[in-house]
């Protein structure tokens, strides 16, 4: 950026300041042509549309206050940014002030978090104070996807039940929050075709204990054992190490109807839990973990 506007602002500020001083000092008194008559209130000689102005002086300390504002502005412009690109003697910036405030808040809360150090997640889950802080953290950072009650919804896992994609031990939960999780169900259309998808779906209803077409399900079993068991396990109960869900229970993250299940196989699913370590740091994640853990234990 050229320095033109900087110099423009500097010039305008200086001209205005000098101009204001001139207006102030030039208007302290008026020179009258005639001597005012005795016993008559003198007029200032100012006439606007035939309306004359009586002399009605302001208190002298007002003048001093005007001067003080000018002096203040000059001191301010030296100390703080204001004159074009001149950063001011104090080096103040709005960003610096924000950082200072943030640091202050950080220091204040770090002391609170420090009181929970050395306690295990299980212990923290029973600590009412940690629970309250955890609930606030959850409300601010997690509730937008998982719901205020942690009950989840379509595409976002329920955190209050016993069913876990990546494991429900304190350690597992802490890892999930810290580093995030990435679902990796691929699309199967090109591999097993639309017929294969229908057959596997029927098979899933069979092992889940629902109504199903026996013939389709038995072909589906072959397709399942060929392509699905490596992640979902031979019994279809899922493998938490891969985040592959249990397919024989009642919990369906992306819908339980045949059409929804087919869509999941057809297109694949890439559910993402973002990593929180950058935003929250360890101390807050520990409290969040204990809160999430306590929700699932109730």
């Amino acid at each position, binding site marked *: 950026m050229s320095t033109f506007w900087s110099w423009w602002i500097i010039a305008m500020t200086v001209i205005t300041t000098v101009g204001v001083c001139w207006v102030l000092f030039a*208007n*302290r*008194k*008026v*020179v*009258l*042509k*005639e*001597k*005012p008559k005795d016993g008559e*209130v*003198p007029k*200032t000689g100012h006439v606007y549309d035939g309306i004359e102005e*009586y*002399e*009605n*002086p*302001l*208190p*002298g*300390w*007002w*003048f001093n206050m005007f001067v003080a504002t000018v002096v203040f502005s000059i001191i301010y412009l030296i100390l703080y940014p204001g004159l074009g690109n001149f950063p001011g003697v104090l080096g103040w910036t709005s960003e610096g002030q924000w950082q200072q405030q943030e640091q202050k808040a950080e220091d204040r809360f770090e002391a609170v978090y420090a009181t929970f150090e050395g306690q295990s997640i299980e212990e923290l889950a029973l600590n009412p104070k940690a629970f309250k802080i955890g*609930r606030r953290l959850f*409300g601010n950072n997690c*509730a*937008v*996807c998982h*719901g*205020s*009650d942690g*009950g*989840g*919804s*379509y595409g*976002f896992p329920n955190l209050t039940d016993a069913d876990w994609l990546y494991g429900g031990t304190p350690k597992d939960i802490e890892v999930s929050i810290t580093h995030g999780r990435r679902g990796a169900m691929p699309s199967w259309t090109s591999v097993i075709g639309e017929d294969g998808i229908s057959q596997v779906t029927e098979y899933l209803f069979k092992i889940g204990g629902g109504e199903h077409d026996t013939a389709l399900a038995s072909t589906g079993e072959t397709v399942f054992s060929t392509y699905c068991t490596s992640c979902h396990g031979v019994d279809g109960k899922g493998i938490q190490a891969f985040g592959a869900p249990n397919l024989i229970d*009642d*919990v*369906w993250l992306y819908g*339980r109807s045949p059409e929804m299940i087919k869509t999941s196989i057809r297109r694949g699913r890439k559910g993402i839990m973002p990593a929180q370590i950058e935003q929250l740091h360890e101390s807050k994640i520990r409290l969040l973990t204990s809160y999430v853990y306590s929700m699932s234990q109730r």
Partner: protein
Amino acid sequence: MVNTEETHRQTSGDETHVLYLYETRKKIYARRFVGFFRKLKKRSGIPLLLGYLLLPWWQIDGRQAVWFDLPERQFHILWMTFWPQDFMLLAWLLIICAFALFTVTVLVGRVWCGFSCPQTVWTMMFMGVERFFEGGRNKRIKLDLAPWNFNKVWRKSGKHIGWLLIAFVTGFTFVAYFNPVRELTVEIFTFSAQPPAVFWIAFFTAMTYMNAGYLREQVCKYMCPYARFQSVMFDSDTLVVSYDEVRGEPRGARKKGSDYVADGLGDCVDCTLCVQVCPVGIDIRDGLQSDCISCGLCIDACDAIMEKVEYPKKLISFTTENRLNKTKSRILRPRLMAYLLALAAMVSLFSYALLTRVPLELDIIRDRSLLYRETSRGLIENIYTLRINNMDNRDHQYQIKVAGDYDFEMLGEQLVTVSAGEVFTHLLRLKLDPGLLKAGNTDVTFILTSTQDEKLTDSEESRFIGPFLL
């Protein structure tokens, strides 16, 4: 306004005349004169002053009776505790106060200024200290002109120490309304008070010292808006401090017992005592002026002189323009009645609102990111966060109920205990079979009722959202 002040005007030479647009303040040396109005002022002022100074020391149920707790955002006034949500009441109270001021102004002009305004009350106190150390009006003028010597130094410093003491007590008391006075007193004398408290005490001490010691009538003349818009409320039937010009003029000195009527003189003996006693430095004989604070001290002075020279009193008095012009004057006029009626209506409405105020506040925050949730059984769930603010001074147990067009199933605790002054966050879910829903969404009302007191109830509306129906 006609300006009679001419000392600011200076002439230089014969041809050109310079007019200064700023004037230096002419110090006012008010003479003390005891009479009816000064006594009245004292009798009305002392209880108000004592009230201000002693109120913070009063305790109710172990806490300060009047305590504006800013960090906690709770405002304790006697037996009640107000929250920021109640600020509507404060707004109404201020409107009522302003309206009461207008009503009084219609009736008797600026008596507020002359008798109850802190600016006047503190100025009078400071003038008392001034008189104690420096003596009466003439002595003070002489002292100011005298060269600096021991006598002047000790009198002046005594005055300033006295002023600062009063100012400190004022500032301290003011801060005590925000910071419990018992702790503050200990902290101040052990030099362990919090920096904000010290700053505000110093600030209000300095302001009191400046306002009552130096600025005095300048505050009324140049800062106070009330003086500027009073002319809107005055009419010819308003009681104002007035000089009876017909009776008094032409003014002039006279020998005792002389036939002044024959000499063509009026009742005014031109003793200028009314000017000398005036705390704002005006001459009431010039007529009603915006500077006049209706303190009545000139009436005291004039009446005393009239008594001395054996003329009838009330040459200067609280009277109306119409009476002075010998026309019919009605004090109880429709305008005043209308003001009084409106004031009475406002006061009763306000008292009603205050007495029936429910110290309970319910807020519903519906989960917005999830419009609804489908359970594994295909039912629709909505999630609500309830913020229950118990503004009462004791703990309460509340029963939560929900009302709407459908028979919702409520999941979550329906009985909650909230301690006094707590803002309690509570999670609730409503569940419904989507087949029952006749529209995509419906209104629901949450009702909170104390189990101890049925009158303690609040309700808040929210929505229940289901799948979009075509």
